[in-house]
């Protein structure tokens, strides 16, 4: 189980006063303090880790957020920012002496501008909510994490979320124009705006992916893009994982950048098919979902090129979606993959390392070996085009030994990713889950530098502490 910093006794002792102080800042229905009602806030998308918070606040305005942060700063109370609570790295895991500030009620779309191609939305608008708001005019918001149905743009900014289509369209950082930022002192300011690449330090780039370490974001200005004329997905099934990996290399090597290039192995194919009924090949060891865009003729031309390439790897089957519904079903299966694995295993840990794509066959082979060593099943689904792996380690949370093994297995996979030249996390963030592995990727000095940058924003380490950086060697938290 993960170690959390000891609650500050002076904060715990003053709980009644702190709650009264918060109550004065927000309407009654925006403050949750009863133990029973705090319970569902003790965890997020990584349910293996749990911790009850001191209180939960659900502000409706930036001013309320600022007032709460200012108050917490004055009182030395820690703050855990929360969006939809879909983090797979425990990014919203509370601390016993911390106030959770949830942005779910800030879910309004403030402005849409098609001529300048941007939308201004509150942080609690769901990722898909942005696309839905502009889809009628043919536009979309490009980053599409699997949880896009539920995850919120504020969380996307904080985790720099990716998605299936980022091979072409980039991740959150590449699709932002500006944010409204609130510091722990309760200061509000805009970073960026409605223009591209302003002069000065790239604070927007630093804030994106900062996992709530630097401040909170309450409004986001995103770029919206005009969608292609159409898009079509095809499935290609192969008899082994390495062969599918070779097909991926060959496609990219040919100069084609499909908008999406996704990989699934046998266990995943079966789980997802049970959920989405998309016609996935149940007899395959590995399957690729390859999507191309453009007019029907353009799609045909590209798909023909891709089929020719895949054909060199003796595919078991190839199938092109025949309708928009079929494409949707194919994607429904892929996007529901994590949850769908819940059908075959009560619990799973979802890893998120990235590796150089050339290492795919080697790394997947090693994962299979480890799976046998640990005696735990693993289902693989990932973004093949960019080497972002998502091995889902299946375990039984009601069995502590099984969980410990799963954690060790996961750590081994991530170490392997770093060893072959990759990184610990491609899109889910470090959170609490991978915090202690940071030393595998960074030197002590490098970690200290990052910590010092956090300190420049949040000297007392009140914002989402105990995440991202290992507790060991953490001068501020140790002192606290």
């Amino acid at each position: 189980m993960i170690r959390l910093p000891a609650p500050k006794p002076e904060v715990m002792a003053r709980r009644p006063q702190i709650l009264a102080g918060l109550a004065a800042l927000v309407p009654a229905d925006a403050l949750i303090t009863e133990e029973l009602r705090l319970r569902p806030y003790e965890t997020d998308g990584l349910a293996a880790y749990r911790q009850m918070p001191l209180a939960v606040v659900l502000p409706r305005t930036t001013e309320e957020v600022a007032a709460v942060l200012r108050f917490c700063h004055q009182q030395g109370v820690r703050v855990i920012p929360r969006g939809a609570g879909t983090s797979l790295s425990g990014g919203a895991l509370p601390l016993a002496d911390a106030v959770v500030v949830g942005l779910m009620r800030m879910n309004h779309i403030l402005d849409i501008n098609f001529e300048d191609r941007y939308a201004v939305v509150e942080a609690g608008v769901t990722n898909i909510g942005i696309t839905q708001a502009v889809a009628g005019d043919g536009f979309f918001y490009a980053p599409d994490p699997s949880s896009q149905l539920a995850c919120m743009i504020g969380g996307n900014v904080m985790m720099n979320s990716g998605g299936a289509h980022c091979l072409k369209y980039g991740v959150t950082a590449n699709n932002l124009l500006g944010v409204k930022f609130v510091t722990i002192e309760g200061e509000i300011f805009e970073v960026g705006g409605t223009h591209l690449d302003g002069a000065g330090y790239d604070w927007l780039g630093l804030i994106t992916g900062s996992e709530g370490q630097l401040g909170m974001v309450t409004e986001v200005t995103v770029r919206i893009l005009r969608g292609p004329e159409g898009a079509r997905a095809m499935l290609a099934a192969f008899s082994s994982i390495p062969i599918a990996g070779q097909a991926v290399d060959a496609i990219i090597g040919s100069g084609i950048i499909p908008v999406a290039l996704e990989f699934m192995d046998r266990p995943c194919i079966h789980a997802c098919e049970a959920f989405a009924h998309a016609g996935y090949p149940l007899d395959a060891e590995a399957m690729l979902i390859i999507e191309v865009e453009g007019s029907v003729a353009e799609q045909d031309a590209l798909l023909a090129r891709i089929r020719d390439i895949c054909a060199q790897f003796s595919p078991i089957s190839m199938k092109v979606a025949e309708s928009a519904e079929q494409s949707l079903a194919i994607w429904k299966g892929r996007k529901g993959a994590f949850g769908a694995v819940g059908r075959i295993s009560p619990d799973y840990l979802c890893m998120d390392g990235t590796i150089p794509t050339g290492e795919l066959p080697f790394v997947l082979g090693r994962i299979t070996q480890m799976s046998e060593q640990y005696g735990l099943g693993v289902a693989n689904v990932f973004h093949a085009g960019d080497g972002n792996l998502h091995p889902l380690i299946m375990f039984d949370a009601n069995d502590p030994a099984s969980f410990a093994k799963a954690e060790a297995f996961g750590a081994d996979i991530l170490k392997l990713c770093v060893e072959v030249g990759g990184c610990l996390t491609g899109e889910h963030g470090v959170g609490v889950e991978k915090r202690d592995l940071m030393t595998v990727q960074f030197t002590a000095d490098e970690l200290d530098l990052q910590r010092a940058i956090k300190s420049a924003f949040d000297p007392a380490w009140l914002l989402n502490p105990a995440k991202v950086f290992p507790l060991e060697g953490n001068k501020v938290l140790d002192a606290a």
Partner: protein
Amino acid sequence: MQTNFTPEQLQDPELKVANGILRTCVHCGFCTATCPTFVELGDELDSPRGRIYLIKDMLESGRPASELEARHIDRCLSCLSCMTTCPSGVNYMHLVDHARRHVEETYTRPLPERALRSVLAMLLPHPGRFRWAMRLAKLGKPLRGLIPGQGTTAKRLRAMLELAPEHIPAPQPVTGTHPAEGARRGRVAMLAGCAQQVLDPEINAATIRLLTRMGYEVVVPPAAGCCGALTHHMGRHDPAMATARANILAWDAEIAAGGLDGIIVNASGCGTTVKDYGFMFRNEPEAEAAARVSALAMDITEALARFDYTPSRTAPPFTVAYHSACSLQHGQKITALPKQLLAKAGFVVKEPAEGHLCCGSAGTYNMMQPEISAKLKARKLANIRRTGAAVVAAGNIGCLTQIGAGGPPTVHTVQLLDWMAGGPKPKAIEGL
């Protein structure tokens, strides 16, 4: 997700099922965003995932439910949108049914609420009593502004009066056997329902007309009545089981007597429950009969598609907004069929945005949770208006009443289909 039941607790077959459901939930949170109450209230506690967590905590501890648990579980519409979204296949319906029963059995609600719930449970399942109450309510409606106070009870009473129709149609009894017209192609039973009979007897009439015209004999056994959904969703286990049992026995007798090609339900809220009889009675002596009944249960649109519905008239050129009742789209996973049938009948069919969100009717919800219900209704009406459609079709009486008050005229899908196949033009759209 991890659970913490003791081995003793897991001896209880009901808890065992609940544990199985909880274990399937991986806490991914996908379901939150498609939950109407989360969208409106923005609190994890009013989301499916939050409710699942609350229920888990409540059942694990074995403690009686408190006001807080009752509050958040009561706010659930049982719309089952979460089940459509859930990639992991969590059976939220069975879990929340279990939880409602636990609340009902272990928590004592404040007196006015208890009284209100008892009255509803007494009235709604019985068409005779319900009609009588509606007459009274109609008389009381102009006085609703005089109910003082902003308390929950006052709001609920006002909401109830608000819902009373201006016009209470004359009853059209349907029990008995309705012979097929022409050559008999088959034989079906029809659930006559309870509240729907009172509010709009034309729906049953249209169903019988259409089916008999298509060559099906329709039987409505006198012993069958309310499906039990209303009381079931209030957590009132015993009365719900009693009414359901009556239906099972009545229909099973018909299966034995003359064979049935289907048990037709034209109120999708009831359909979801009838299809669940097999589960509800799994540990009862009637288990087998219940399973037989559930297997034969079908929504009227399923029946019409299977029996090859064909129109005989040319449809007028107006656009129909199809409102997908939650019990149909989420509960029974029937989404395309009704639209296909309406299109086959010749109508231009439009689907409002946010079609997955409940209209706020949800059985007795619009009376018990008037504020949330009103918000959802307003949201639904705005989306429907945006389609520009002249009429709204839906397959559930609750939705028809909820949307009909304030929106474009509403008709049951079967009424439009019957009209296009030779039946009369539905009264609600006479002026169109």
